[in-house]
């Protein structure tokens, strides 16, 4: 009996720690479960959007980490209240229009103004970046609309295909290209959207931002440089992936490239990108260190 009592009091204490936060989370779970369930069967089901649920989870973890229950004010100032009202009203319009009009970007995207309107006014004296970054990061889980993705995807695919052909040709492989179709020996390969798309860049950009945020550095220049360098890194990682798939097809046949090894190439993309990212960071640090030595 006593054990039960102490266990339940322990549980209560656990919830006391970030109580307001959990209430808000409960509200979000109720509101967004149907929206997310819908995304899971469509936009997020695409291979190039696999990062989105992870971004969502990470954003909430970051928010949880930075939330301080002791800093929840008992009274809210007029400015904070007005800000909250405007944000929540905007979120409500997006939520209704998105859900009724069947536009998942809007329905899901409303989570950002909703959080801005409910979390920011409830934290006093917390550095604003600590609250804004998780919300900004959350943007990367919103599916990009087609009218932004479609016109940019085609040239990116062409570039990846062209780079792949140049590299493999220089290495002595019998390879030729027509648009996004690659002809390697007797095989015909197509660079698909998922292999070179803007969405991959988007995913990697999220990875870069998270990296910058988690491994904080006082140098703002370093942070900006890393986020910018994600663009060429993404391109390189994509080329590596396509080359890997070409080689798998060339040596092990079509079936191998379409099966397990295709998944493997996807993992390779991220390992490659992360390695390049860390490499870029280390070289930036090295250059910075040398410059400080020189200036002394």
């Amino acid at each position, binding site marked *: 009996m006593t054990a039960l*009592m102490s266990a*339940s*009091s322990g549980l*209560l*204490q656990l919830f*006391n720690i970030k*109580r*307001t936060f959990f*209430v*808000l989370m409960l*509200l979000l779970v*109720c*509101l967004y479960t149907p929206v997310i369930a*819908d995304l899971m*069967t*469509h936009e997020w089901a695409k291979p190039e959007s696999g990062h989105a649920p992870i971004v969502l989870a990470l954003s909430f973890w970051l928010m949880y980490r930075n939330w301080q229950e002791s800093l*929840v*004010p*008992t009274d*809210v100032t007029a400015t904070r*209240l007005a800000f*909250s009202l405007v944000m*929540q009203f905007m979120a*409500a319009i997006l*939520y*209704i*229009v998105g*859900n*009724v*009009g*069947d*536009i*998942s970007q809007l329905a899901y995207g409303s989570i950002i103004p*909703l959080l801005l*309107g*409910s979390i920011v*006014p*409830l934290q006093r004296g917390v550095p604003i970046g600590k609250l804004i970054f998780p919300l900004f990061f959350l943007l990367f889980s919103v599916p990009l*609309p*087609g*009218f932004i993705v*479609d016109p940019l*995807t*085609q040239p990116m695919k*062409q570039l990846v295909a062209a780079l792949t052909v140049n590299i493999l040709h220089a290495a002595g492989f019998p390879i030729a290209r*027509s*648009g*996004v*179709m690659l002809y390697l020996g007797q095989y015909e390969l*197509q660079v*698909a*959207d998922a292999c070179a798309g803007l969405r991959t860049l988007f995913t990697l950009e999220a990875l870069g931002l998270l990296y910058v945020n988690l491994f904080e550095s006082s140098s703002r220049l370093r942070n900006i440089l890393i986020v910018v360098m994600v663009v060429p890194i993404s391109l390189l990682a994509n080329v590596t992936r396509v080359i890997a798939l070409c080689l798998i097809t060339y040596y092990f046949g079509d079936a191998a490239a379409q099966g397990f090894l295709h998944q493997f190439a996807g993992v390779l993309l991220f390992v490659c990108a992360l390695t390049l990212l860390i490499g870029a960071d280390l070289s930036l640090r090295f250059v910075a260190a040398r410059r400080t030595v020189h200036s002394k």
Partner: protein
Amino acid sequence: MQVPVVSAKGRFNRLVVWTISFWIVVAAVCIYLQHRITPRHTLVLRGMEDVIPQSVGDWAAVAYEAAPIINPEQQQGLLEDYDEILSRTYVNRRTHTEVMLSIAYGSDQSHARQIHKPEVCYPAQGFVIDSVQRVQFDLASRQIPVTTLHATRGRRSEYIGYWIVEGSSIVRGAIEQNMKRMLLALRGIRVDGLLFRVSTLSDDSMTSTVLLEQFSQALLQSVSPSVRSKLVGEPAVASDL
């Protein structure tokens, strides 16, 4: 023995309570509006194979496929979104030019199931689209907004012209399509949609566009007015939205 008592009053901020009540109302409004939506089918062409004639003007349908017609449905293994698809090749008796026709009907134009534009389904099947133009075709005694594309895959060079009818009028472009769907949904209506696509294998933009226009004219003239109004929609009226 002390059990920590949590007083519900003081702790909870008023803002939190307001936020929750506000969102309960929003969710209720949303559920009401969603349940109000009813499908409206105005474009159904039952038995397209019979409704669309085998012979239109100087053109006759042929049993063989000169070149495989690109499936409007295929988008990297996504859902089967259309209820009926008609794919045919017509050959001109005098000039022997060939036109590929593809009409796809989808009864449900919700976002997930809405008609895929050829800009999407051609690249999904390995084509590169190097030009997208918005033109007007002179059809059914009015100007029809048509999108023309040039798509290539290997040595195959194809000129495509298409339009999409939703509900009772033509919509062009994703933004227009989304806006119309959203505004109709807020009024409680979900419409059906139809893709009309003609294409020809050629290297010449000018003659291809003229050819596609002429074929579309011939086809629309050879069907009954009721079928025609489904294939090109009614002239758009402001009240339609």
